[in-house]
Structures are given as C-alpha cells and as structure tokens.
C-alpha cells in the first residue's frame, strides 16, 4: 500500500493551519539519535504502519495501526497502537472514544481463537477442528435443504425457496465478504436472508 502519503501532512495540501506552522517553529529536528531517557521514549519508533478504517460507525474514520513486525514481509505482526490518520479527509486524525481504543478491541480477552461446538443440551462449548465444524455444517445444510426445499408452488411455478434455514449477515464485514456471502446464500435458495440494516 502507499505509505508515502502518510508523511505528506494534510495541510501542506490544504493550506497551513495554526499548529501545523507552530510545531515547525518549535524547531523539531530529525537527527538520527537515541532518545534521551528524560521524557518517556517515543513508543512508535521503529513500528510498522498499516492504513485501515475504523470498523465501528459509518463515518469510517481513517486509522493507522502500528505493529511490531510486518505482515507484508510474512512476519508475525502484533498491533501495539492505533491512532487516527491525519491524511483522512473525514476525521483528519481524530477518533471517538471507541476508535481511540481500537487496540483493546483487537486484543480483547474475549476475542475468539478456536472453533467451538456446543452439543444439544450441553452446558459447555468444546473446541473442535475447522474441518470437523465445516463438514458438519455443510452436512446439516444439505440435510435440511434436501428435506425442506420448495422447488415449485401449487401452480407448478418454479420458486426454489429454502425457508427452513436462515442467514443473518454482518454489517461490519467488507463488501467483498458480503458479495461472496451473497453468492453462496442465494445459490442455495435461502430466502430468510437479512442484515443489520433492518434493525
């Protein structure tokens, strides 16, 4: 992705704003030197930047994620900080209380890490393998579809409805995910198809 822009301050493009000029006036050099231990060392030094947009509301603020390790180099990347993207026309680097704390959403203790299954009547989740979960789900789908698919209505008109299984789509997945989801769901004849926009 194009990171050159990140260094090009917004105002250099859109006219100088107050602090833009003043911070220059305060004489900040870029000499390559270790930070003196007097103030806390700047914690983003030598981190990797990645552009993203906030996943919460529809303002879609630009954010920059700072990680230890570079995903694009195939490294393990651990996000250590997230901050607003100054170059973004809408949020101009600002973030709301949710966006400003995104790092702790990424690292929430309640993030899911493994496929889990709860058996009928059980009082617990048990870890299962992806293959087991996906094969089982595909089988359950086929079983229900084959049993309850409505190919034609009373008048003999092909209607191809599958009403006994439903799919509720997300509102924060990407358009690409949504489109792939649409294709899969529609191909099966599921009509109970809806998303967060409804509520």
């Amino acid at each position, binding site marked *: 992705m194009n990171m050159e822009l990140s260094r090009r301050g917004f105002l250099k493009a859109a006219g100088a704003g107050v602090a833009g000029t003043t911070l220059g006036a305060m004489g900040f050099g870029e000499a390559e030197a270790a930070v003196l231990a007097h103030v806390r060392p700047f914690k983003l030094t030598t981190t990797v930047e990645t552009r993203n947009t906030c996943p919460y509301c529809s303002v879609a603020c630009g954010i920059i994620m700072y990680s230890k390790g570079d995903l694009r180099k195939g490294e393990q990347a651990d996000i250590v900080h997230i901050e607003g993207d100054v170059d973004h026309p809408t949020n101009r680097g600002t973030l709301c209380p949710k966006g400003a704390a995104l790092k702790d959403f990424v690292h929430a203790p309640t993030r899911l890490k493994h496929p889990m299954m709860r058996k009928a009547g059980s009082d617990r989740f048990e870890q299962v393998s992806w293959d087991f979960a996906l094969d089982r789900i595909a089988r359950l789908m086929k079983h229900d579809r084959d049993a309850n698919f409505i190919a034609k209505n009373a008048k003999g008109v092909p209607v191809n409805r599958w009403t006994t299984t439903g799919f509720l789509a997300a509102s924060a997945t*990407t358009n690409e995910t949504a489109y792939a989801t649409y294709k899969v769901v529609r191909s099966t004849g599921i009509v109970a198809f809806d998303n967060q926009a*409804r509520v």
Partner: protein
Amino acid sequence: MTNAWTDIKNTDLVVVMGGNAAEAHPCGFKWVTEAKANRGAKLIVVDPRYTRTASVSDFYAPIRQGTDISFLNGVIKYCIENNKVQWEYTKAFTNASYIVKDGFSYQDGLFTGYDEEKRDYDRESWDYVIGDDGFAVVDPSLQHPRCVWNLLKEHVAIYTPEFVERVCGTPKAKFLKICEMIAECSTPTKTMTSLYALGWTQHSSGAQNIRAMAMLQLILGNIGVQGGGMNALRGHSNIQGLTDLGLMSNLIPGYLNIPTEMEENFGSYMSTRQFKPLRPGQTSYWQNYKKFFVSFQKAMWGNAAQADNDWAYDYLPKLDVPSYDVLRIFELMNEGRVNGYFCQGFNPLLAFPNRAKITSALSKLKWLVTMDPLETETSRFWENHGEYNDVDTKSIQTEVFQLPTTCFAEEAGSLANSGRWLQWHWAGGTPPGEAQHDTWIMGQIFVRLRELYRKEGGAFPDPIVNLAWDYKDPGEPTPEELAKEINGRAIEDLRDPTDVTKVLVPAGKQVLNFSQLRDDGTTLSGCWIYSGNFNENGNNMARRDNHDPGDTGAYLGWTFAWPLNRRTLYNRASCDVNGKPWDPTRKIIEWDGTKWSGFDVPDIAPNAKPQDVGPFIMNQEGVSRLFTRGLMRDGPFPAHYEPFESPVDNVINPKIRGNPVARVFQNDVSQFGTSAEFPYAATSYRLTEHFHYWTKHNRVNAALQPEFFVEISEELAAEKKIERGGWVRVWSKRGSIKAKALVTKRIRPLMCDGKAVHVVGIPLHWGFIGAAKKGWGPNSLAPFVGDANIETPESKAFLVNIEPTTPPSEVVA
C-alpha cells in the same frame, strides 16, 4: 447520505432530529462544529432527551418519541402559509404540479382504499392522471385543485402549532422558533441539512418520518445542494455496503429485486420494470434495469446463465411474501418452522425486540452457526447467567457452532461509509489463534456443500453446482478477485454500437463502469452501482489523493464513491432550470452551454440540456416526489400515527392503533401493553462511550461507561422515590430488567393531550459477556412489530413501568 460527511461544513443550519450525531458519530459531527465555527451555522436539536448533541446546539426543543411526522408536517404547513418556499425549485424539480386521480383522498386518519382485514390499502387511486399522450398531466400554475401542491396544503392543514404542542408535547413557542429558523433556508442561498438515524427509522412509521423531512427539504430547495440533503447516519461501518449489495430477503445487489411468485417468468418480471418516462424527454435511468440484471445473473452463474434459459431466472428464489425479514424469520423460528440459522457478525439476542421471544425461538433451532471475532450473547444464548440469562440449559437441544473470525485489523477489503465512499483497507495484524477470514469460512462452507451435491445430488443442485466460483483458491476468494467481479468485466469484446469495428472493451477486461454493461450476456457485474470501483485503472477504492479543489468537501481523488465516484446525489439540482448554481459561492456543477462540469461528477448525462432533463433521473418523472404515488404502503403523504404502545390515543382517530398497515403477528397482539398498565414512554439509544455490544469487551470503553443504567427525570424519580445511582426494575408486557437509575434534568415530563408523559431512556450496550459489568438491553422490553414498509422494529417508542428494586442476584451454578 445524499451528501458526504465533509460536505456538512457547507451548511447554514443543521437539524438533528431522529438522531444524536454528536454521540453516535462524533468524528462526522466534527463537520457540524466546523460549519458553526467557520460559517456561523446554527444547530437545532429536537429530541425527547437533552442529548450531548443538544449540549452544543443553538436551540433545543423536546418532542415525544414517535410523533415526528406531526412536528414536520407542522413545519411544512408553516413554510407554505408563510410563503417560505423555494418556489422555482419546487415548481421545476418536484411533482407539485402533477394532477392526482380523483379517487384519492384522506379521511379520519386513513387514505382511500383501506382494508381492515388485510391491514393494507388498495393503492390504485394513489397515482397521477395520465393524459392521452401517455404522460402525466401537470398544471405548472399550481392552480388545479387536484394538483399535488394543493393536496399537500390540504393534508398538512390540521398540523397547527397547537396540534403539534398537543401531540408532540413541544411547547408552541419553541416549535415556532424552530419553524422560523428552518424557514430562513427557503432562500436559494441558505441551506439546511438533516442528520438523522435510528431515531426516525425504528418506528412503525419510520419510513414516513424520513419522507416528511425529505418533502420539507424539497420545498426549501435543499436537496442536491452543498450543505443540504437528507443524511441518514448509518449505524455500522458497512451497513451501507450490505444494503447496496442486497443482503436482504427481497434484494439483488444494486437495489434490483428478487422476483415474487406473481412474476412467473423473466418476461413478466421485466414487464413491470420498463420505467417508461412519465414526462417527455426525461431520462428515467431504471430503463437500464435489464442490463444490470443480466450482468448480475452472469456474475452468479456464468455460462449456466444464457438467453435461452432467461439468464437462469429460475435459479433465483421467488418470494411468496413481501420478505422474510428478521421479524418474520424469528416468528417462524418460534413456531418451530426453522431448523438452521447463521449469524455472521451479528448478535440478535441483544439486537432484536422481545428478547424472551428471541430466546425461545433460538431454543427451537436444530442448529445455530455464529461467526464473530468476539464472544456474543447469541452464541451463548443457552448458557445460564442467573437473572441476566435465566435459561434451562439442559432443555435446549440446539447444536451451536461458534466460529472465530478475523477483525478489521487482520483483513483487507472495502467498506462503504454513510457518504457512499468505498474505502479500501489493509491487514496489519496477525489473527489470534485459529481465527479465519469470513471469505475463507464462506468459501469453505460452499466448496464442501457443492461437493456434497456433486457427489450425492439432492434438491435442485443446479444453482449450487453451477455457481460461478472460478477463484484462484475456491476455498478462499481474495478481496481483489471479488472487488473486480463486483466492478464487472467483458465476457466478449464489447464493440461500439455506432462503429462495430471499434472494440471498447476487449473480452476479459474490466469494464470502466456500469455505463458499459449490456443486457445480451456479454458483460458480468456483481453490483452495478459499485461498477467503477476496480477497473483497468486499478483499485479506485484505494486512491488516497486528499486534495479538494474549490474546497467543496468533495475529495474526488479520495477512494471511490458510488455511483460513478459521485459525492453529492442529485447534484444537478444545485443549479436552476438554466443550469446556473442557485448559490454561486456554493457551486458543485454548472452548465456551460454545452456540457455539465464542476467539482463533482454531474448526476445527469454530461450533455443533457438543463431545460429539458429533470435532475431526479432515477424517477420516471425526472422530478422528485412530494406525493409518492403507490410506492409506500402507508400513504403517499406522511400522516400522524401513534406508536403501537403509546401513552395517548391517536387524536385524529382514537380507533387507530399504531400504523394501520404495519404487519402484526397474531402472537404479538396480546403482548402489547396499555398506558393504564405501563404509564411511561420508553425509548432506546446508544451512548458515545460504546459501540453496540462490541465495546463492552474493551477494558477502556468499559471503564468509561461501566454499567447498565436507565435515565429518568427528577420529577419521575421523586414520584417513584427512586434515588440517583439506586437500582430500579423496568418492565414491559414482554419482559423485565434491572438497572442503575440515572436521575437527570435532561429529561423533563412532556404535556401531551392534557397529561404529563414521563420518558424513560434505556441505552443498549450491556449484556452478560465482556469486560463491562453484566446488564440488560432495551430489547428485553421492546415490542415485536416493525415499520409498515421496511419492517424495522419499533424500538424507539414503547411503554414500560418502573419501580425501585434490589440488585440482581448472581449467577446460579
């Protein structure tokens, strides 16, 4: 949004009604504060509560939830009576002059053609008089008694300031002050913007709330202009995208429709979709419907979609009901008529009304699959959490799969924001544990299912086995592959119709945008309105030029906005009949005598003469609709109806409960409460510290707003002996919850129809899992009924009772 977030800085007046922008969209609200600081713009807030938006407003007025139509019709009446109308705009760009059929009328709160049995209207008479030339009859002088303008005047006549005060509880003086402030924006050089959200949609008359404001904006000439428009502040980061891509029971990507049983074949389906212009020389862009539909079918089923099988028309399901929306599906589920259910990044147990019913419905499923980066209450609906989720785990026979997905930080792709900007983002973090991309999960489920049908056959396998799925790795299509397919490409060489030797797009290449799509099966496109997002110029959604020529807030070089990178919809209406900007200081585009050009992509054919072609090209009329014909189930004009649960009767016709055509399931009728049992008017909302049910998993946001509470007035607290910070029980006909009491001056009792109405505010961010303290949400109490047109649940207005109580008991082992 018709306009962009960054366009709000160009406004003179911001009206926040049916929303709470500062609290729900702080960084978008920045542009309101910019308009205030740099243009001297004013901010009006109308809300049952004095919100954080109100805290920075220039004028605040209270209103009883669910009565917005009375308020807005009142403002329309004020503008008409005081000649505060942008006449040139109204006459040229709306259907004010169209003559309506004689049969149409409105009496005792009902329009012509009501059938109480069906709870529906026969809308035949809700239409224009069509002349012998096949075009709608108009009277530009607006003298004809049956012209839309005069019918509108008649319709809003009852909405006097006194009526508004009586119904809405808004003091007359405050209402009139707001009328004056709004009326100022009827001049061509002053614009007003409307920022709204679920405060308008979550009502049984939600769609009409929005129509009422849209009509007001039209007569003020504020649609299509800088700093104007109807701006729906969508709730989630890609709720716009999922709607655009048609992930709904009755939709095909790009706002095309899934057929109904009536449309037995492709011919009958297309017959109702010719969209012939209703006035001479109009564009009526939907005439291209077939191109988009066929291109979609080709994207779905490739070679299996051919002219001779009507482009696989029969692969599509056909609906026997208007839609299998979430309310209907949970009704069916609760009746035991649904076996399997998928929740992809969704938490219905806390999101849908009448939680008791949702729990009982989920318990009747054979299997449930949830895909989410976080724990959700839904995936653990079977788990007993004491008072917080008191279920009998053993008796619940549902098999549940909880699949871990990646989150935004670990995936690439695009999201459509409220301003229709498709913004690409990049993955920067390693997913935790075995978490996988949703595309991987959907791909894996599909290839496995397809394999089963290939091997074993089964019920109508064709649409599954023939689905176009030619991705490099069928197990996980890449975001780029999918984005390109959405944009569309040529299947065969596309030749210039005027010169067949000229190849416009060679076979296999990306089309430039939807203008190159065809209805002969030579193009494919997953979602026509997005076309142009990823063409031969590359991924336009990843563009990052943040220059803004003319400082209009358009940012045409920044990512991609649908349609055709257009930032302000209907922007042709920013110019007068001759194509000159109403306000030269706020020019968007302009007609130079030969073509349209300016700072935004014109929302009209570049060479369409301003005097000939109307600005609203998606309408057959070429103009906007003050009178919406039969396109809405509950009336061509918005009319006042009370919520299904209301503290007062409908003053127009006390016999009418709620919206007369809203769908109500038999089982739910008995679950509506009366004001005798439940005297207080409850409403639900978000708080700025949290985002739905996600941030309660975040230690930071949990610290900023740790525990579930309800907000009540000091008056109600005194009456009920409720202490600030004490525990209260709030219950409706459908459920009971416990919360801390937040006693505030920001909520005051409203005088409605002679009685004091107390408002109880219930925020929605707590559940029984996460970092924040355990709690409940308003959906435990909300009624199971939706809007008459789009079935959005009436979560913003219902009745409850309240009393002091003891803390909730802890989890029973």
